[in-house]
């Protein structure tokens, strides 16, 4: 049995327990049956692999989430400040930013992190570049500085 199968099983049991909250024998039996059925179907569909269960991220992802949360709050304050400014002088920008090679998972995390922070949204991801629309062009410069990219790269290792 692969380690990914085990982690998916644990995840499904936790998900079921949280959603059900009822621990009667009948419920327990039904829960176990559904978890086993989902595991069986997923393994027959061959979707249990390191892409659907990226366990190698576990070590570094909490630190990244904390950093992302900080960035999220900062950019939220920035955008809210722009919203309430009395004279709206927007400097939106659309730019294609080069990036060095990242793994598929790295690219997904990078693009989603950019979209998640208010003020920037990823519109296109290619092999070695991303296109970003930003509410203010200073955000483009911030992405170009490559701090987020470096942090995502560290996750891959």
């Amino acid at each position, binding site marked *: 049995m692969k380690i990914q199968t085990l982690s998916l099983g644990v995840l499904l049991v936790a998900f079921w327990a949280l959603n059900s909250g009822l621990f009667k024998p009948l419920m327990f039996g039904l829960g176990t049956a559904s978890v086993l059925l989902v595991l069986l179907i997923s393994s027959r569909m061959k979707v249990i692999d390191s892409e659907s269960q990226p366990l190698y991220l576990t070590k570094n992802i909490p630190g990244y989430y904390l950093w992302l949360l900080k960035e*999220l709050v900062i950019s*939220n304050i920035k955008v809210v400040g722009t919203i309430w400014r009395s004279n*709206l002088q927007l400097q*939106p920008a*659309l730019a*294609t930013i080069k990036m060095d090679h990242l793994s598929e998972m790295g690219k997904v995390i990078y693009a989603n992190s950019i*979209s998640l922070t*208010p003020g920037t949204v990823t519109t296109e991801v290619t092999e070695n570049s991303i296109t970003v629309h930003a509410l203010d062009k200073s955000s*483009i410069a911030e992405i170009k500085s490559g701090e987020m990219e470096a942090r995502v790269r560290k996750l891959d290792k």
Partner: protein
Amino acid sequence: MSIVATYLSWALLVLGGLLCISGSVGLLRFPDFYTRMHAASVTDTLATGMILAGLMLQAPTWIVLGKLFMILVFVLLTGPTAGHALAKAALHSGLKPLLPGKSGVLEADNKPSGGV
């Protein structure tokens, strides 16, 4: 529930509500689709997060707490995905973003600018 948790919870709820209003105001004030998306993402991320955190502090049982946490995780996962899909679809169907022209006035540019 302690008095501190009550006050903290209400502070978070009120702040989250204010952020929701800010997002809506931005939605009305900003000039085009793409800039409006940025305003909406304030409501998507911090406003939702604060309201859910405020509710978590008032959760009567662990089950409720866990469910609220799951809602937060799903909102944070689906928000950027939907935003990316919307922006990409708009760009591909030919909606030009407003960009500052030479005089500094916003205009719909035909080609995306290469840099800052």
